[in-house]
């Protein structure tokens, strides 16, 4: 796996929900290398740090990468103003993505802006994939049509019950896992959701991979700022979210470390 750095034209820009944008970049050599769960560190004019954005879709055939991101601060606000015809300053693809077993049924569990990196898994595993997606309310729902198109089953949950299951993603997750049909759960979302998903997976004896977030610097493992506490062979140590992750096996992650 290798990464690239350069300017890649934006060929499509869409608003998916208030403050959530989708951008498609023409970046064939990156699309060739990229794996689901990887990210790119995107430069924004006028800002010292690049913004790590997960890869939402990787289209090798058309040589494109799709990014879906939420405006979180001044940098992502500026990034959201880039339009078709302009270029994205992309460093990527970076990090380790999800490791998907072949020919096995899996579940992807996403919360809010954690859903985009799961879409490429769904696109690749199609009928073997069940998606459980949680959002605050109906107005925050994104990528529903795509997940429904790719997956065998898509279950929506909202915190206020305005669409789908009222409440946490772990309720339908536990029900699905009880069928004993699934080999893996892939999750991305806020920390409380990830903790609950990991617990549910443990209770049902199904392995889980989680994609983590942390304030990031270089994106390539050089500066060691985006650390998360991990445990291996009883040893606790800080891993780099950018280089050792962003996807980790759930049992290795120690939240709040």
């Amino acid at each position, binding site marked *: 796996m*290798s*990464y*690239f*750095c350069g300017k890649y034209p934006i060929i499509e820009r869409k608003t998916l929900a208030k403050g959530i944008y989708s951008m498609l970049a023409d970046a064939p050599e990156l699309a060739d290398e990229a794996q689901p769960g990887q990210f790119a560190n995107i*430069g924004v004019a006028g*800002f*010292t*740090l*690049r913004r790590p954005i997960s890869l939402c879709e990787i289209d090798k055939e058309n040589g494109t990468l799709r990014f879906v991101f939420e405006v979180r601060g001044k*940098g992502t606000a500026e990034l959201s103003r880039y339009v078709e015809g302009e270029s994205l300053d992309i*460093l990527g693809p970076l990090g380790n993505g999800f490791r998907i077993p072949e020919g096995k049924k899996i579940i992807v569990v996403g919360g809010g802006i954690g859903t985009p990196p799961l879409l490429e898994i769904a696109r690749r595993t199609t009928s073997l994939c069940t998606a459980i997606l949680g959002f605050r309310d109906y107005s925050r729902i994104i990528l529903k049509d795509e997940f429904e198109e790719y997956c065998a089953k898509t279950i929506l949950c909202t915190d206020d019950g305005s669409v789908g299951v009222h409440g946490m993603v772990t309720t339908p997750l536990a029900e699905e896992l009880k069928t004993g049909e699934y080999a893996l759960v892939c999750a991305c979302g806020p920390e409380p959701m990830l903790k609950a998903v990991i617990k549910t997976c443990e209770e049902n004896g199904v392995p889980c991979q989680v994609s983590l977030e*942390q*304030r*990031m*610097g*270089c*994106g*390539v*493992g*050089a*500066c*060691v*700022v*985006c*650390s*998360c*506490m991990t445990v291996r062979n009883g040893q606790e*140590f*800080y891993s780099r979210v950018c*280089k050792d992750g962003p996807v980790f096996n759930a049992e290795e992650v120690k939240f709040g*470390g």
Partner: protein
Amino acid sequence: MVDLSVRIAGVEFPNPVIAASGTYGNGECYTDLYPLSKLGGVSCKGMTIEPKLGNPPPRIAETYSGILNSVGLQNIGVHGFIEYYLPTLKEEGNVIIANVAGAVIDDYIAAAEALDASDIDMIELNISCPNVKQGGASWGVSCEGAAAVTAAVRRATKKPLIVKLTPNVTDITSIAKAVEAEGADCISLINTLLGMRIDINSRRPILKNNMGGLSGPAVFPVAVRMVWQCFNAVKIPIIGMGGIATWEDAIEMMLAGATAIQMGTAIFTDPYAPLKVIEGIEEYMDKNGIKSLSEIVGQVKPW
């Protein structure tokens, strides 16, 4: 043809651009983009005699034209460095500099002794890390502390010795003179300026360590000033750093008194920044009929 090479303490750098410690790993992180041999040298991630866990995250916060970091010297230890990283560094890179930190003087001595027996080209003594509770910058903020560590390490190694200074002092020239007197071959400056940022909603500092070191273009004028002050205070060569992002910045730093320069934070913005700086320096020399960079070092004409 212009000659980009510079010489410091008998060590020849093919060009004056060095990757700054803590921003370039141990040289392994950017080789997808260009070979390590393009840089004049690499100052490796700050190392301690024993492995160090570092501070809890978040460890980085963006600022106007810069960043704060509070890594806290996470590293695999000097012996791990020598075993895992040094062979590749020596094979692929030019000048390899080991940045060494410690809590007590014996830590510095043990690290220097281990490195003395290795293939490392130079040692950069880090008495300026603002992010560790013990040691670190506490050695670099007094003439006595700086002199004591320098003297001890000087006795422990024959390797060319750079001492990296902290800007968080009242008078940096007195520290520079103190380490020169104890046998430093070179000084490098500036390390980061101690800073802080607060999330106004949670009322929590963004960094888990509360405070951290400021770097990036925001600190550049402070760095230029301090390099110029030190150039007028000591005879040993200076490696200038602090916010250098463009070739113009590099030339400015050299005019202030730097024989070579280090780049760090700018690499996060643009990984190719060091190569652009090298090209820019070459063109500037060509255009201005400068044959050797020694012609411009310290050549600012103060009012």
